[in-house]
């Protein structure tokens, strides 16, 4: 009998990290799934992003914790002792660089109703920008498909897997979406639609004005680009310059954090900023 191998979900950090529910099957030894708010039913993930941080973990053997940034946020990725080669590969990759990770959903529920999800890496590899863009596209397509399926499902009296499959959704999408509708009382679809458009505009040359911040982002990127030396530029100097261009002080900090989340800038050392 052929057992289906879990597909590797291309999923943005913002959506994955928002997950509040885990699905467990009654069948023994069957895997646990993270059910995301938009109905991804995740056991295995494939993520590509910017390696922005690598931390040594305590305990026995080699354990490392990495942050992989995508246009929406950062995935937390663990390289555990049983995969020393993965921890090794990550340590050899310069920060920042584009990396691809294949891994399993890592679930931590310290108490009822509290859920932390991350990724346990099985494979890590440094990749190029083209592959990163392709991954963003795939993650966007998958997200768009699930947004459509969630909307269809919510319009049904009794959303069922069979009904969603009938109108053309893959079984795996239908299963996750039906569970998400059941588990999440309110799904802020609009929030994720904005996120999706933002992520898409990341790979299109035609930047669209989704948020007012976008203009500010470009200004600040330009400032950093002009002022950074080998070691980056002082945080305070960027804020000073940005205010001169007419951005509010509060917004400046917000924009800098947002640029970091997106993996466009990073801190080579505390208090310094540099373009990726």
């Amino acid at each position, binding site marked *: 009998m*052929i*057992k289906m191998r879990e597909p*590797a979900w291309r999923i943005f950090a913002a959506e994955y990290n928002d997950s509040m529910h885990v699905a467990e099957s009654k069948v023994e030894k069957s895997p646990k799934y993270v059910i995301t708010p938009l109905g991804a039913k995740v056991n295995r993930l*494939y993520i590509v992003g910017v390696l922005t941080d690598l931390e040594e973990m305590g305990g026995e053997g080699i354990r490392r914790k990495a942050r992989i940034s995508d246009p929406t946020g950062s995935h937390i990725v663990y390289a555990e002792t049983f995969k020393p080669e993965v921890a090794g590969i990550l340590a050899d990759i310069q920060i920042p660089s584009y990396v691809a990770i294949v891994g399993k959903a890592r679930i931590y529920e310290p108490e009822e109703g509290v859920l932390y999800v991350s990724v346990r890496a099985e494979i890590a*590899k440094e990749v190029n920008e083209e592959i990163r*863009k392709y991954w963003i596209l*795939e993650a966007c397509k998958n997200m768009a498909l699930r947004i459509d399926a969630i909307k269809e499902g919510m319009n049904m009296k009794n959303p069922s897997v069979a009904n969603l499959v009938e109108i053309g959704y*893959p079984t795996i999408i239908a299963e996750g979406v039906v569970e998400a509708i059941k588990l999440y009382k309110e799904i802020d679809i609009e929030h994720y639609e904005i996120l999706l458009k933002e992520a*898409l505009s990341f790979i*299109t040359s035609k930047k669209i004005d989704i948020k007012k911040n976008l203009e500010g982002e470009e200004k600040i990127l330009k400032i950093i680009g002009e002022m950074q030396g080998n070691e980056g530029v002082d945080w305070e100097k960027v804020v000073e310059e940005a205010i001169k261009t007419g951005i509010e002080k509060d917004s400046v900090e917000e924009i800098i954090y947002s640029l970091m989340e997106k993996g466009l800038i990073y801190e080579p050392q505390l208090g310094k900023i540099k373009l990726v």
Partner: protein
Amino acid sequence: MNDEIEEAVEEIISIVNVEREKIEDDLKRFIDYGVPLSQAKDAILHKYGKLSRERKIKDIKANERGINTVGKIIFIDEKEVEVRGEKRKIFHGLIGDETAIIPFTAWKDFNIKVGDVLRIKNASSSEWEGNPRLSFSEWTEITKLDYDIELIKRAPKKYNLIDLKSGLSNVEVRGKIVEIEEREVNIADEVRKIFSGIIEDETARIRFTSWKDFSLEENKVYRIKGAYIRNWRGAPQLIFDENSDVEKLDEEIFRERRVIPIYKVVEAGGGIDLLIEGTILELRKDSGIIFRCPKCNRRTREGVCEEDGNVDAIPDLRIRALVDDGTGAVDVIFNREVSEKILNRKMDEYLSIAKEAMDYDIVTEDIEDKLIAHPVRVYGDSIQSDFIITIFAKDAEIIGIDAEKEANELLASMGD
């Protein structure tokens, strides 16, 4: 009170094959003696239990015992299974009457053949994909009957070839015969002529076998009703026979090869003439340079072939990789020719690199570097495999995708 007794009598008659008068007499006697009705009912059922009525196949439900029925064997095949560490030969197939067709499993050899009409006593049933499946065990009695019975003529369900999966029965398809070949097979000491080949519609290509001569011709389009599907060498196969209707159509079919999402391939249990796109996420062990026996083509270990002993092994390049598109995953085997194409490097180059480094792992490292995380388009057939659907690539290429263009299209389709 009388109504209740009446109801009980009806119920008993529906279960056992005994005249009404007898049942009424029995029931009255029990009640006269003060036996509660429900117990009286059970006692009578128990008394006539051995005469338990023969049921129509549609009335058989999952997880029942003591099932008696009459049915005709539509299809039977044998397979080996392991039961508590022991290899056993079991038989499985389809059985039907004028009310339904369901799958069955026979746990011993009852010498059943296709077309046999059987009286079955004391069978049981289990559940298979939500439907009942009959099971014939050591305790089941089977007698061959010398008359024929009609089979159900429910309207077959229409399918595109891409949606066919192993286990379906009574399907209707429409397709063009791409290839056909006549051959003889030995089934239970009987020589039968069969016709097998490849049929296609707009959505897919699939292997077929016809157990009857329908005078099928290549390049002609047919509608086939009442066919069923089973898995053969790692791909679904369309089967039809004397119970099926085949009609020649005055139509043409043009198939454009389209990319199939991988979950479809997984759900179908494989297929032929498949075009898939996905990302290479993992290389399986023994990808790279391997050595083969010049006589039998088997893989050698340290110059030794398990069949031919010490041989002058010849090098070969092959890759086995996991390809995943986010909806599902398959293994793909790339032979030397296709590997050289996607790597853009000849085996000879790899051989000299490996010789210089005195290490063949260096080749595997280069392959990993070139392929992992890269999207690839693969064309080929699935082959028999146990754990994951495996596709043998007849052709493949690394996909160069214009992410920006596609992203613009997706944005445009979303509106504001």
